[in-house]
């Protein structure tokens, strides 16, 4: 079997209690952010990417499927939400629902095409599909091509939460992130998650046991795409724009990078990875030209020296699943 699983699977049976404690600690820390003077927009952005990376991780870490096109969900949901808010003037909650639903639909279609392909074919076909979508968005009038959709109104969530107030927005984004995270966590630790793992391990055998593996993989793909889309919809409120960069393949690469840095197949790794990478982009911005080089070095270093990622290494050291 693939060495990916060798490295990433927990050495001891999952200790759900540990994980819940860590989760509570994480939620608490994040809830305190507005009182610390840390710049909230940075954290909000990181939260959106963290959710995105978690959604991606569901597919690779637990389904063994490396999607190199996850940016398409982020971007699609972003565009749809942005359009709904700006042009149709819908309230935020509807904008989010529509954007996320668009990602679900996209997941269904692209999943149907890609899921029956194995391993690296799957990566390549997702990459190609997202690139196809990129070119479509580049030319479609409603996305405004290179200029993107700008100046999106944030509005009032449920009519009373004023999202243009940073603190309100922050807690809304945080709630969205935690909700999405819990959905993923539950999925991993559900009967469905168990089947998913066995499919990753030995698909032929799973078939011979009577599992229609394509259906399971498709469902995993759709869940992952939906949550990635949800992250994209949330991000619209933070960035107040929707642009092509979110659909470009380099974004898909960044998602992989975040997950890898944090730890593929770990629960909390993608979150940590997303924060690290976003922080790097923000704070290394003054190093200007070297940012891509530094990113490249991190990729290489991760793959060569700590393949388990930050959280993965810690978990391995503690012999716990995190």
């Amino acid at each position, binding site marked *: 079997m693939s060495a990916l699983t060798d490295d990433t699977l927990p050495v001891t049976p999952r200790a759900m209690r540990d994980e819940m404690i860590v989760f509570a600690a994480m939620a608490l820390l994040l809830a305190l952010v507005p009182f610390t003077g840390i710049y909230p927009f940075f954290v909000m952005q990181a939260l959106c990417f963290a959710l995105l990376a978690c959604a991606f991780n569901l597919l690779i870490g637990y389904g063994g499927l490396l999607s190199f096109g996850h940016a398409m969900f982020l971007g699609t949901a972003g565009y749809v939400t942005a359009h709904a808010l700006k042009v149709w003037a819908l309230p935020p909650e509807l904008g989010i629902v529509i954007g996320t639903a668009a990602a679900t639909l996209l997941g269904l279609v692209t999943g149907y095409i890609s899921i029956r392909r194995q391993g690296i074919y799957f990566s390549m076909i997702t990459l190609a599909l997202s690139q196809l979508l990129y070119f479509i968005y580049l030319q479609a009038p409603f996305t405004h091509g290179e*200029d993107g959709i700008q100046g999106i109104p944030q509005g009032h969530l449920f009519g009373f939460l004023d999202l243009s107030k940073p603190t309100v927005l922050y807690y809304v984004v945080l709630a969205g992130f935690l909700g999405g995270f819990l959905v993923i966590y539950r999925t991993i630790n559900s009967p469905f998650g168990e089947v998913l793992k066995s499919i990753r391990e030995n698909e032929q055998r799973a078939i011979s046991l009577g599992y229609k593996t394509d259906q399971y993989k498709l469902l995993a793909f759709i869940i992952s795409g939906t949550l990635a889309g949800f992250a994209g919809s949330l991000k619209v409120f933070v960035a107040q724009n929707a642009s092509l960069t979110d659909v470009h393949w380099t974004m898909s690469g960044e998602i992989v990078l975040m997950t890898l840095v944090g730890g593929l197949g770990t629960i909390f790794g993608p979150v940590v990875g997303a924060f690290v990478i976003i922080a790097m982009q923000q704070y290394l911005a003054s190093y200007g030209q070297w940012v891509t080089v530094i990113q490249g070095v991190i990729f290489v270093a991760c793959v060569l020296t700590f393949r388990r990622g930050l959280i993965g290494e810690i978990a391995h050291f503690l012999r716990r699943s995190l």
Partner: protein
Amino acid sequence: AQDKTVKIGALSDQSGLYADLGGPGSTLAAQMAAEDSGLKAKGWKIEIVSGDHQNKPDIGTTIARQWFDVDKVDVIVDVPNSGVALAVNNVVKEKNGVYINSGAATSDLTNAQCSPNTVHWTYDTYMLAHTTGQALVKAGGDTWFFLTADYAFGAALERDTTAVVTANGGKVLGGVKHPLNTSDFSSFLLQAQSSKAKIIGLANAGGDTTNSIKQAAEFGIVKGGQKLAALLLFLTDVKAIGLETAQGLNFTETFYWDMNDQTRAFSKRFAERMKNGAPPTMVQAGVYAGLLHYFKALDALGGNPHDGVKVVEKMKAIPTDDALFGKGEIQPNGRTIHTAYLFEVKKPSESKGPWDFYKLVGSVPGDQAFTPLSESKCALLKK
């Protein structure tokens, strides 16, 4: 006492496609503007920070927002890449800062998305299309064929140029839309060649433009008697293509280092401080000139530079006049107008130095080159 500290944020693409025409050079231009403003002597404290938006709108907006919220930046300059430029435009407006954009081509900045906090210096798509189209038709290039990048930017360039060409009695024989980032243009060039148009207009940018020029040379298009007109081209692009290939190419800029003694003097000082010894591009020149004008406004205000709308109003009130762009004005929609020039790339034999590339073919006064106020879709004008 008057508050006399200002902070300038040079937000640019430091590593990507636009790093050569903006990037570190723009930061340098901002520094030189601060030094040359003479404000220090008058008790001002000027600080400059720079950032890399990596051509991503959300990184651009986060940096901008953080600059305003945390670092207390007053003015953001440069910002090439239309997508990022428009995104930042919204942030500056929200935070009531000052935005002097010199790097972006989109004319939306002073039309549909204009803002009381924004000054758009240097150039825009309307001006490029207009100047190149008008000057070339007048010089006899009355039949056109377009190679257009297939997205909003290319379409805008083609549309605006077509309008000028026909208005001046020329004719558009056809065109072909190519996808962004095409590496091979031979198919399109063959179509352009067989159209027999006198002018082949390149309504694209960056690598697409340089590659189409290079391959046009290969297919003997210029030798065959047709002319190439690049609608958006920078000094650095010409350098990259090389004179051998680029010779005879027409295009518009609003600044060239070798225009007169003043531009030469500035460029010499600038080049000495650049890592690769390059003279300023028009974008970098725009950063310098735009900031100088901003400082003039501050000087006139005497202090308290933190109310963006007020500062921009002051900037609009003073006519512009600097060594690099000459005399001009900032229109109510935020558009700076100044003379635009049509250049042609020299033959290698005519070039006398490493950056001696252009010869001047014609010029169009600012009020004819840029969007007339009557056509501007800016909401600020409707007051």
